């Protein structure tokens, strides 16, 4: 058999059932011709894979069960989890026992925000840091790159002036605008609160693909709250900043509400 004759019988090879016999000269040609042997081998593989592809859009549940069992054996997931974590559960549309706490938590977030905002501590004179009057620029706000709006002044790390005791909204209270180091978010993210951990836990259980999204948004609103809070610690009488803090808490409550709506 020649190579051209092999080509002619290739369609039969693909359509044939696995293990079907072919003429002896066909097999002997394959043994003597590496090119044809490779071609036949490739076609058999493609045909086999194609049959499997048509039958399944995604792996059967038993595959996930086996993977989960193997992961459990290897200690990568806990035995306490009774169901395979890789199988996304169909979320019920109404209230569930695992999400009931989100509503009061959202309300608590708002209440906490309202308390923090309304709790107006007596303005006090900040400790005067007498030593170095040199302020070291440590950061520029990278968001301000538009040519028509100048960048923000550099943020400095040390206090070089006394903080006035008078109410910042008073016309006489000169607020040192170049001294805002404490308003900058900390570089090390503090651990999430218990409520936040619970929130993320429920989200990851009910909507695994969304965990990263909600986690990112939660970090962002928490960072905003910390940023404003740090600023208010330094300028407790700034009414605008106080309102910003309330807004930041409302944004966090909004995140909880959206998550609750989505996962219930």
């Amino acid at each position: 058999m020649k190579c051209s004759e092999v080509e002619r019988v290739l369609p039969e090879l693909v359509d044939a059932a696995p293990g079907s016999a072919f003429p002896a000269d066909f097999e002997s040609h394959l043994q003597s011709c590496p090119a044809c042997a490779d071609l036949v081998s490739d076609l058999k593989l493609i045909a086999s894979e194609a049959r499997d592809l048509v039958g399944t859009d995604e792996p059967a549940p038993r595959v996930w069960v086996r993977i989960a069992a193997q992961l459990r054996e290897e200690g990568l997931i806990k035995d306490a989890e009774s169901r395979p974590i890789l199988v996304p559960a169909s979320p019920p549309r109404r209230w569930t026992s695992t999400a009931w706490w989100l509503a009061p938590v959202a309300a608590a977030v708002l209440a906490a925000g309202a308390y923090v905002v309304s709790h107006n501590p007596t303005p006090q004179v900040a400790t005067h840091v007498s030593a170095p009057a040199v302020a070291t620029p440590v950061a520029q706000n990278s968001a301000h790159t538009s040519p028509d709006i100048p960048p923000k002044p550099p943020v400095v790390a040390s206090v070089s002036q006394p903080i006035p005791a008078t109410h910042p909204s008073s016309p006489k209270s000169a607020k040192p605008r170049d001294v805002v180091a404490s308003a900058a978010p900390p570089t090390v993210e503090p651990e999430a609160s218990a409520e936040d951990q619970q929130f993320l836990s429920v989200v990851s259980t009910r909507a695994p693909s969304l965990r990263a999204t909600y986690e990112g948004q939660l970090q962002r609103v928490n960072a905003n709250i910390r940023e404003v809070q740090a600023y208010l610690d330094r300028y407790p009488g700034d009414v605008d900043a106080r309102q910003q803090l309330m807004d930041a808490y409302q944004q966090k409550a909004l995140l909880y509400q959206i998550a609750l709506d989505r996962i219930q």
Partner: protein
Amino acid sequence: MAGLQQARIDYTTTVATVVLVTCLSAATLAQTKKEYSYTVGARANISVETQYGAISVKPGNPNQVLVTATLMSDNVEVDQQQNGNRIEIASHLLRGNQQQTSRIDYELLIPPDANINLRSSNGPLSVERLQGDLTLEGSDAVVDIRNVENGHVHVRTMRGPITLTDVRNGHVEIDSIGGDILMKSVTGPLVQARSSSGRIFYDGDFGSEGDYKFTTHTGDIEALVPADVSAAFRAHSVLGRVRHDFPLQPRHSRFREEAGRSFFGTSGQAASEVLLRSFSGRIRLKQR
């Protein structure tokens, strides 16, 4: 040898095509459309909730609600019920939670005065030419509202951008955590927009006797107004830059004005009150 190579390529292409066509055919066959019709009275309340999918609402017959649902697979079904003047439509996931196969797109024709409540995770949500109250919610949904009047407009998203165009006499409350908010010709007794990191852009004349509040944390705020705008402005960014290239008359204020951080002033008869506030975002008022 060249013939063999060509045969290999041809056969590979053929098999791949067959697989692709089979998959596409299966997807097409799985898509089904369902239509529902309801008779309602004035100011009907209509609610549509879907985990995944678009919702589009337009005005139709004054006493009739027509709903066309396009189901992308048999993994989902439509739950629907009418209780008097209230209609509830909801997607019901039967199995799985795949975005593509769990999707239902809705198109509604409703009485122009009906109140609607729409919710979809990924949207988009679009509403036009209505006069009732509108409540739209979606975490990542793109929201587009245009040509509506006389109603409450409440929108909430997590990251989805929100666009309002030609909203008249509305009680507007927009909240987004990370989405941009764009408003063009939006007026009413109350127009409030809040975004944490999203940008707020307003292009309009701030109507008359309205209360406008735009707030961000890190997002920028920009307002583009005509020369004859009638409003009292107050803008303040705690850490961001604030500027205006618009002639304003000085106004008395209990707040302290700081160059580059805040400004106060009026234009015309100061019919509306406009507050632009940010923590670290930039604020700019421009003349159109």
